[in-house]
């Protein structure tokens, strides 16, 4: 009997222990701590260093993917192929080949990824604005710096989006409920919003650069982009003034006379460049364009572009290179460091001084200030070892500026395409040299996948 009692007691112990597991609250077992590779959004904007890291990551993303990357998927390459700057040596339909052939489809991966990464980068910029605004820790100066940068980035990306895709949504918040059904805004409205953002950025950003090697935009950088967009929207006086504000900042910006040094990381004619990804290796542009024996694997300059340089143009000798084998090929040589380079000497330049001279020249010419327009144009020409322009009439000067832009700004983020487009010359120029050119090719298609998911983006651009 005693034995049985002991048995009963022990049974009780076991049962009650297990039942304890069933009744006892063990919620804490499944509450796990935040992983050590992550920070909450709130915490990021409680500290200037982490908030800055959030902003820097947007630049890193822009450097490495999307519209502004120097990789073969970015505008430098794709718009070069799309217009008359580059020849494609890739032949796959998933490469830049359909861009070269002007036979784009709305499902092309680059059409999709450029759109998607731009909006993803815009989201990150908007998240910085939201986080910084909500922060109770950052100082007003710190807030101005970061919000100014984020507004600049937002305007920059939208300006390229509207350039290639035409009408597009302008995203200013992080609310996905709103952003999932956005409509495309007309081209002029997008530019107006870009300009408004940039004007605010100009008011927030200081003249002095933060960070190293001009890798983060300052007030003048915002003004430089503003000058471009005023020009694109025919606001000549404003364009001229904004360019002057940049050009007059002579304590920072000094013309680099040696064309071989313009794209070096310490160049004084650089307004804004992407910081390198590390201490070794150079730019994506260099990897893309430079080759030492032909035929190249990706791209070479068209003979038409090579022929567009006037006799004696220093840019031809310094910024292009000819490779001879069983045929002759030319490549863009603005960035010298290709495959096999090690120490970082070059950074990817986004905005530089020469464009500002050409913007002001054009804006002045448009306003009838022909003499000062020619001064700016001749400044560029003389520095390139060329004589003064012989253009006399306003029309001739404008033509001369456009020609100058072609040889100054080639293979730099699609200038050729945007210039031909805004001056209405796209069809006239390209239909002659591009067998696949159609008049509807003035814009890329909106990615099919986006149209399907947000029908408010309809209609698709004409021709697709």
């Amino acid at each position: 009997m005693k034995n049985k009692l002991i048995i009963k007691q022990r049974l009780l112990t076991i049962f009650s222990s297990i039942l304890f597991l069933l009744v006892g609250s063990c919620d804490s077992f499944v509450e796990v701590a935040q992983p050590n590779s992550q920070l909450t959004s709130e915490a990021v904007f409680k500290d200037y260093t982490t908030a800055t890291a959030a902003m820097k990551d947007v630049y890193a993303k822009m450097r490495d993917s999307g519209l502004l990357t120097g990789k073969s998927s970015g505008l430098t390459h794709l718009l070069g192929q799309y217009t008359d700057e580059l020849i494609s040596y890739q032949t796959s339909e998933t490469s830049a080949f359909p861009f070269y052939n002007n036979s784009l489809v709305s499902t092309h991966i680059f059409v999709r990824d450029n759109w998607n990464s731009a909006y993803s980068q815009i989201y990150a910029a908007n998240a910085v604005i939201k986080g910084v605004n909500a922060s109770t820790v950052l100082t007003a100066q710190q807030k101005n710096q970061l919000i100014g940068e984020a507004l600049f980035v937002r305007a920059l990306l939208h300006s390229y989006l509207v350039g290639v895709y035409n009408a597009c949504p302008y995203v200013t918040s992080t609310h996905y409920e709103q952003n999932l059904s956005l409509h495309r805004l007309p081209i002029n409205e997008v530019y107006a919003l870009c300009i408004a953002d940039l004007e605010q950025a100009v008011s927030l950003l200081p003249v002095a650069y933060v960070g190293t090697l001009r890798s983060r935009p300052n007030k003048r950088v915002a003004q430089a982009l503003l000058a471009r967009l005023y020009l694109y929207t025919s606001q000549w006086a404003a364009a001229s003034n904004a360019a002057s504000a940049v050009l007059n900042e002579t304590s920072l910006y000094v013309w680099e006379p040696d064309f071989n040094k313009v794209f070096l990381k310490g160049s004084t004619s650089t307004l804004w460049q992407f910081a390198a990804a590390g201490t070794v290796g150079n730019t994506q542009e260099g990897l893309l364009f430079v080759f030492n024996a032909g035929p190249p694997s990706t791209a070479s300059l068209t003979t038409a572009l090579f022929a567009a340089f006037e006799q004696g143009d220093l840019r031809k000798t310094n910024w292009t290179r000819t490779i001879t084998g069983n045929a002759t090929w030319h490549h863009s040589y603005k960035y010298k460091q290709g495959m096999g380079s090690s120490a970082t000497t070059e950074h990817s330049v986004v905005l530089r001084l020469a464009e500002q001279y050409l913007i002001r020249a054009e804006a002045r010419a448009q306003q009838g200030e022909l003499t000062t327009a020619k001064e700016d144009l001749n400044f560029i020409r003389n520095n390139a070892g060329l004589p003064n322009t012989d253009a006399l009439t306003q029309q001739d000067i404008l033509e001369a500026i456009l020609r100058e832009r072609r040889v100054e700004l080639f293979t730099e983020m699609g200038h050729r395409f945007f210039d031909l487009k805004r001056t209405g010359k796209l069809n006239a120029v390209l239909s002659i040299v591009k067998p696949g050119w159609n008049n509807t090719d003035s814009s890329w298609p909106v990615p099919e996948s986006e149209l399907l998911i947000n029908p408010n983006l309809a209609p698709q651009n004409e021709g697709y």
Partner: protein
Amino acid sequence: MNKFSFILKSGTINFSLAVLVLLFCTTTWASPLSSRQQTQQQITGTISDAAGPLPAVTVTVKGKTSGTLTDQNGYFSITAAVGDTLVFSFMGYKTVEITVNNQNTIKVQLQEDATALKEVVVNAGYYSVKDKERTGSIARITAKDIETQPVTNVLATMQGRMAGVDVIQNTGMPGGGFDIRIRGLNSLRAVGNAPLFIVDGVPFASDAIGNTQTSTNLPTATSPLNTLTPSDIESIEVLKDADATAIYGSRGANGVVLITTKRGKTGKTQFAVSSSTAFGQVISTMDLLNTEQYITMREQAFANDNIATYPATAYDINGTWDRNRYTDWQKELTGRTAQITSMQASVSGGSAQTHFLISGTTFQQGTVFPGNFVYKKGGVHAQLDHESIDKRFKVSFSGSYDIQDNDQPSRDLTRVGRNLAPNAPALYNENGELNWENSTWENPLAALRAKALAKTNNVIANTLFTYVLPYGFTAKGSFGFTDLRHEESRSNPSTVFDPIYAATAQNSSIFVNTTNRQSWIVEPQIQWMGKASQAKIEVLIGATYQHTATNRMLQQGSNFTSNSLLYNMASAALVRVLSDDDILYRYQAFFGRLNLAWDSTYFINITGRRDGSSRFGSGKQFATFGAIGAAWIFTEASFFKDHFSFLSFGKVRGSYGITGNDQIGDYQYLDTYQSSTALYDGGVGLAPIRLFNPNFSWETNKKLEAALELGFFNDRIFATASWYQNRSSNQLVGIPLPSTTGFTSIQSNLDATIENRGIELSLRAVPFQNKDFGWTTNFNISFSKNKLLQFPGLETSTYRNQYVIGKSINIQKLYQVTGVNPQTGVYEFKDFNGDGMLTFADDAQVTKDLNPEYFGGLQNQIRYKRLQLDFLFQFVKQQNWNAASYYSTPGAFSNQPTSVLGSWQQAGDVVSTQLYTSGTNSAAANAYGRYAYSNAAITDASYIRLKNISLTYNVPTGSKGLECRLNVQAQNLLTFTNYKDGDPEFRSFNYLPPLRIISLGADIKF
């Protein structure tokens, strides 16, 4: 009941103490059995069947604990008293009972029992159940099915053999994975449809351990399931319905795969060795254009584009390359024979109390690519059971350690083999070096210098303690542990580049991914079994505590000093850590089961589980799941016994219940920034990683099943038909978002309901069974229909162009081709809304379902004297994408399938293939883009495959106790299909098709 309520009130002592108590405080209950003193006598005898002596037959004395097994000669010896009943039982034979009189020797011939199937005890996870009495839907294969197949992946062994289980091989690349779907797609999330895998009681996380950066040669990142060794497996049970899966609660929605490894048996120590050599070749190739056809296509393309001078880059026809050269690139690049060797050895045996088994395996597979690539796999498996003399205490351990070492090219050459122009240059120049043909092509063999290496070490161990308590109670404690370490790398040495670039080791780079995953699980349980008159009651309650910690790190090293130092990160001038994540998953549950049986005729089974998971935010972590199942063996009723004597067994069963799904990844409820990998201006950036939504919770899956099981003519024919309907709702998905939101999706619950409804039939027949000749046949077929039942707001949601209410969730919306315009030569499509424009949203109105309509297998086993032939036909009725959706516009610089021949050439041509273009005709390019998403791009891809055939000869050895078997086995021997573009079994096109493997082997046992 009083006792229970009393116990319920006192709950204070903590859990660990309970476990200790369970394990150690045991001996006091050992109450000695008092046995009557009677005259004991020694009884010996032999047991045989129609074919001869039968070893390992269990001989017991009814009502007593004593027992023995027959030896190799069927001989046994046991002590029993007059009046005792000896019971002779052996799996697959009818049990015989003989009362002991005064005889000293007994000879028994056992009769094979076709009904064996229902005597089989099926593993249902936390409990086991006689197949005859089960209330749930459970499919099963055993070692007998596995050992006829020369395969290395556990999932491969299940293909075609289990009703309702759809297994697809993703690639023929060694180390590549399989997809498994049990009763269709339940979740809108592509990754949310994997079943739960349990190996010897330990959950085995099946989420990928590879990284897409390093698993570039596979369609999906490396799966950990490859490490399991099929030859170690005793049985695989697949739990399908609510009754069987609800006890797994939140993880049971997609079914549960229970893998049980082999165990030792009482008897003489047995050694077994088997080895085989096999040869594997790609199962099928595509019909591609030859050089003449190809050149004609290209010439026509440029003519159509009005381009008279071939561009400088059109090397294939502008004279740069020989226009007459021909290479069959598929044969050249993927046409080698892979040599495969494998070997297994095991020792097993045991006394009445202790059993053991130790086995080791090695496996090595060569490659079909040109080059030396090897996949190696090996492992050891150990198993130990011990039972106390009084049979109260039992401990059972099983552990396995498996290693994989995979050395493959980083790129699968299948795609390039299918796309390369047939007149592309020679691979080697006259010096025997790679030929780059003056930089006019990328030599495909250069890609083989970039390697994908993978090493996996995997330990799974489990110990189960069982103690039989008085009053019908049994306490159990299960402790499991897994430790998986995986490292894979993808190198990109400078030698892959054309030497003209003068690339050096500074241009070499490597990605290294390491994944380490450790988990432990503790599951204390108490069972109670009671009997009252004709009722039998079983109760089980238990708890689960599971902890899984995963660390993943992806690094990139570049700029090396020498290519020989490529695998040394310290030699890279630039090292980037691309990701470094520690992921903790914790899971806690309480579960229970109540089973009532009445008169061995009526059965009710109630199971339930309350689950908590760290994958959800605060307040959303817990949910309750449960099911009820019932069965009635109606042939137990005398009415049936009297009137339907041909019907030897009949059972109806049904079940209903709710299970869940928490496969949504970890930490998804947090609003966080993550260290991004990119450096900028001297620092690493921080990037927002998702749109924030903390309010998502469990997805639920309601399963309903009804089944009929019938045995005829003493179960020589045994048929099962089951009908099921699974509805999953509160879908937990990454709702797709337009990129203007900054992300492509947001984690959220969606009020959509998906139904999977189907019928599964399986039939087993034993038409002949005698000493010299036996024939067994198994047939299974599964029909399933997937349907999106409801989706409020579908029309305004971002899913509007993907799904249609009332149709499968695996449909594709497509344009409808109306033909080739005789004037322009370009494909035309039906403009459904007649607005004169073709848009996907309005005009892709044709839908095709990519789910299989039905699938199944027919398996036969024919035995004649010493020869045994096994073969399995697998069949699938399905549609799949064809080459049109993967090839570029015909006419471009890429080879094409022969189906593009006969294109439009001039106005007035009425043909079915549009004009060729070299790439400048944007109308043609756009039309082809739509054609790739038209009804012409998805075609019938049904097939019947002689999946497996195995011929075994049992060699007469002349020596007792020595067995020798020789076998010839083949996998994927023959395929019958109308699908033209390679093998019809794939999820992603352009990966290496499954291999046809022919193997020769020998097994020796002594």
